């Protein structure tokens, strides 16, 4: 029988199981929440050391990034992320993993062309968009004045 694309797509959608959101969403909720609470815990410690609020915030990011990179190196991050999904991806740990994973993976192609070039293959767009958005926002502030 002749096949048209619409019919075929419908057939394919019928055969494809949906993502198991009933399992994924609670997993992401708990892991993501736990990582944020852990960050808050670190922040409490840093504030207790007499750091000012902004510096403590940066220190929290650095600590979580360190943990993300370490777990990536120990091959534990991927295992956790398979279960946690967005729970490990969306916190800053996901950013750390997206830099560390290609750095580690492309070691076999050398340090310059492997590690250093590929390091930004996933995180590159995040940095580019983030920096560009902040520059645009800065320009708007400069042109239209003191909104914040």
């Amino acid at each position: 029988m002749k096949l048209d694309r619409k019919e075929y797509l419908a057939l394919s959608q019928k055969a494809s199981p949906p993502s198991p959101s009933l399992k994924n969403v609670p997993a992401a909720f708990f892991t993501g929440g736990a990582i944020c609470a852990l960050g808050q815990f670190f922040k409490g410690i840093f504030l207790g050391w007499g750091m000012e609020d902004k510096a403590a915030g940066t220190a929290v990011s650095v600590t979580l990034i360190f943990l993300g990179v370490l777990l990536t190196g120990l091959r534990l991050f991927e295992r956790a992320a398979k279960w946690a999904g967005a729970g490990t991806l969306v916190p800053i740990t996901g950013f750390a993993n997206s830099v560390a994973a290609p750095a580690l993976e492309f070691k076999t192609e050398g340090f310059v062309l492997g590690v250093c070039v590929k390091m930004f293959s996933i995180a590159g767009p995040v940095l580019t968009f983030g920096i560009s958005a902040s520059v645009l926002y800065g320009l708007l502030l400069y042109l239209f004045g003191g909104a914040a």
Partner: protein
Amino acid sequence: MIYVKAFLVGGVICGLSQILIDRTRLTPARILSAYVVLGVALTGLGLWEPVVRFAGCGATVPLMGFGYTMAKGVSEAVMQQGLLGALTGGLTASAGGIAAAVFFSLLAAVIFSPGDRS
């Protein structure tokens, strides 16, 4: 109490992101990029600061927090240095995190070797 709030808000952000991933098949790089931009935009509109005040790390640890840090840095820098601040503010404020990610990853590449997944 702040821990519970951080847990709940952070959890809700991640849970909603999971729905987005499951429903739309957006790649992680796209979602993360969108979140950073969203963080800058929401902070600019004055909408993210209240969430940060309410939930602390629940709002700053997810990647919107990265955008929030950049936006705050830019607005301070523009006030102090004018036009030049638009270019320097964002990266200066987020320099700690970016440098940490780059340097730790380089160290990790020296120390660890990539493994099998199966």
